[in-house]
């Protein structure tokens, strides 16, 4: 087989299916989607598509399909603990996972003290000292930038549910895919605006000062997408480079999505900083996920000395 970066047919089918679902249930345009908040009914419908089975097919996680799915859900701004649920699937036993995988119960996952979506979750898992634990039952809602129904949590006293390594890796991969999708959606939206909005007698996109930041964001999103897909493939194939690539994907995707969001704010001008405008709702979520623990600094510190060579096909086992 020749070197190729395209998605396989399974991933394409998942993306098509999710895109159709989101357009039907959230609306075709971002202005409609931005007002859709988390709902258990919507979550249940999503689960019925089999999305959470991707994270848990027996004992095997299908990382490429998780990344493909979360990319589309990020682009659609689908609300809810998506990367968190995929991560939790790595930590829970079958009995505890079953209602969550079916969409009947909600789980969130993260590092203390702030865990997004904890306030709507039936179960909150936190990582402490490399172990996954159930959070203490009494936690407080906190309003956050990304409006993610977050809560301030602490680890509970129950025994550990196991090592956090794989769950954290899936979490980082999921966050990467979600924010890359969100960043790309913002870029597409603002590019349409730059092609049509006229000022000083020409379209905004005819000004290099407008076009170039958008082009640079596109360039960074494209690199991030390759890194996400490579990280997922490496994880599926159990390549030694998988750990480095997942962290690299998180860093690259986060920065690319932020660059896209900032360019979108700036290009839309005043409308770009209004709450009812097309940027704020996704930009808020991108920044919140960017800041969430493990932080980019943590990811950076976790890179091995060989990270820079991890995309060299010569290092990949056949």
């Amino acid at each position, binding site marked *: *087989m*020749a*070197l*190729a*970066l*395209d*998605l*396989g047919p399974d991933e394409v089918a998942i993306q098509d299916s999710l895109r159709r679902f989101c357009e039907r249930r959230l609306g075709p345009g971002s202005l409609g989607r931005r007002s859709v908040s988390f709902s258990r009914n919507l979550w249940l419908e999503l689960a019925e598509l089999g999305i959470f089975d991707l994270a848990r097919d027996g004992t095997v996680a299908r990382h*490429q399909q998780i990344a493909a799915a979360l990319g589309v859900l990020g682009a659609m701004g689908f609300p809810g603990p998506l990367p968190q649920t995929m991560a939790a699937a790595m930590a829970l036993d079958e009995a505890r996972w079953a209602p969550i995988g079916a969409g009947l119960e909600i789980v969130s996952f993260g590092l203390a003290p702030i865990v997004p979506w904890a306030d709507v979750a039936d179960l909150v898992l936190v990582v402490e000292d490399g172990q996954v634990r159930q959070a203490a039952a009494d936690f407080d809602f906190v309003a956050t930038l990304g409006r993610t129904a977050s809560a301030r949590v602490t680890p509970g006293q129950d025994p550990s549910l196991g090592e956090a390594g794989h769950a954290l890796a899936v979490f980082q991969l999921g966050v990467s895919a979600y924010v890359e999708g969100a960043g790309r959606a913002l*870029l597409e939206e603002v*590019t349409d605006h*730059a*092609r049509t909005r006229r000022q000083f007698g020409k*379209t905004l*996109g*005819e*000004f*290099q000062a*407008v*076009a*170039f930041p*958008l*082009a*640079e964001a*596109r*360039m*960074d999103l*494209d*690199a*991030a997408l*390759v*890194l996400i*897909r*490579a990280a997922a*493939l*490496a994880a599926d194939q159990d390549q030694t480079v998988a750990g480095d*690539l997942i962290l*690299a994907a998180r*860093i*690259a995707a986060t920065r690319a999505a932020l660059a896209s969001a900032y360019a979108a704010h700036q290009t839309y001008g005043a409308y770009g900083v209004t709450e009812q405008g097309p940027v704020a709702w996704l930009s808020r979520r991108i920044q919140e996920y960017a800041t969430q623990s493990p932080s980019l*600094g943590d990811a*950076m*510190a976790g*890179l091995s000395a060989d*990270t*820079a*060579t*991890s*995309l*060299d*096909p*010569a290092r*990949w*086992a*056949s």
Partner: protein
Amino acid sequence: MDLSYSPAERAFVAEVRDFLAPFRQVLQFLHNNDYGALRSVYQALGERNWLALSWPQALGGLGLPPTFEFILWDEMAYARIARPPLSAGIVAKTIIRYGDDEQKARWLPPIRTGKAMFSLGYSEPEAGSDLASARLVAERVGDVYRLNGVKIWSSGAHEADFLWLLCRTGEPASRSAGLSLVIVDLRSPSLRIRPMAKMGGNVFTEITFDNVEVPVAQRVGPENGAWTMMSASLADERHVQYPPKRVLRDFEEVRDWLRDHGRGDDPLVRHRLAELSIEVLKVQAHALSVLSATLQDRSAVVEAAANKRAYCDAAQRIARAAMELGCAEAVIEGEIPEALWRQSLEESIGGGGNEIMTGIIARQGLGLKP
């Protein structure tokens, strides 16, 4: 999706590394100024027919997929030995696509064996990035073109054998519709070459044509048909032009230099190196996108522009970080930070500057018209 080399490609990586071993002291990738050493490398490649890896077998090539060329020039870049020669790339691939049988018989064998070296004659004093405004006139007089004008910023023309010349055969205002490509013998009388040292250590040249005569038979492709051919030949070479392992090597040398100068344990240095390792990976990601598109015979215009821009950004960020994080020794001539700082400046200017590349992404990737 697949990110590993096939067994044959993997074997080729090992073969290339073995082949490069005796040339590791050549170090011409960055400096490109020891033409004797470069000729010896190209001729050794020619002996293995590796300058014609992807040429059709009927024309003396090996008919291999572009991945093999990518591997060769990526490893060459990592070893800092040499860049792909213009001759076996743009020149040969244009002749293969557009040349007549006589031209193929005359030019391809010496190129394939590494015996004919070419320089590129595109830019002019009034036509830098905007090549459609090139003015050097090729006036047809019987069986020859009479050339008058000036070319500039041509690398290594004072040492090469031939010039791949873009010239105006149409009306002065014909822009891209009035340009042709001809091969000029650089030893032609009435042709003056003036070298200009570059900060990076190699040499630009200015070439003045004063009634230089070139046989019409040395025009490749149709008269006034250069523009299409130039685009096609660029497409043929996108996967080898900006090899990601050049920036990987920059990164590793700077990392090791900082460690050797007592900066390896500084948390600030470690953090910055981690940042730079992501930049290296982004270049590799773009390069693999170009290769993947090329393998599928898809246009890779946007991918190639992004690759070039990312490559230049990474090379410059690595060099500048070395200066910022290093110690006083960083500025000593010949030290890694000093050499990379000087050389990386030119990367974002030659071969289509950063502004051109970003414009391509904006226009062709996003549909904007900056």
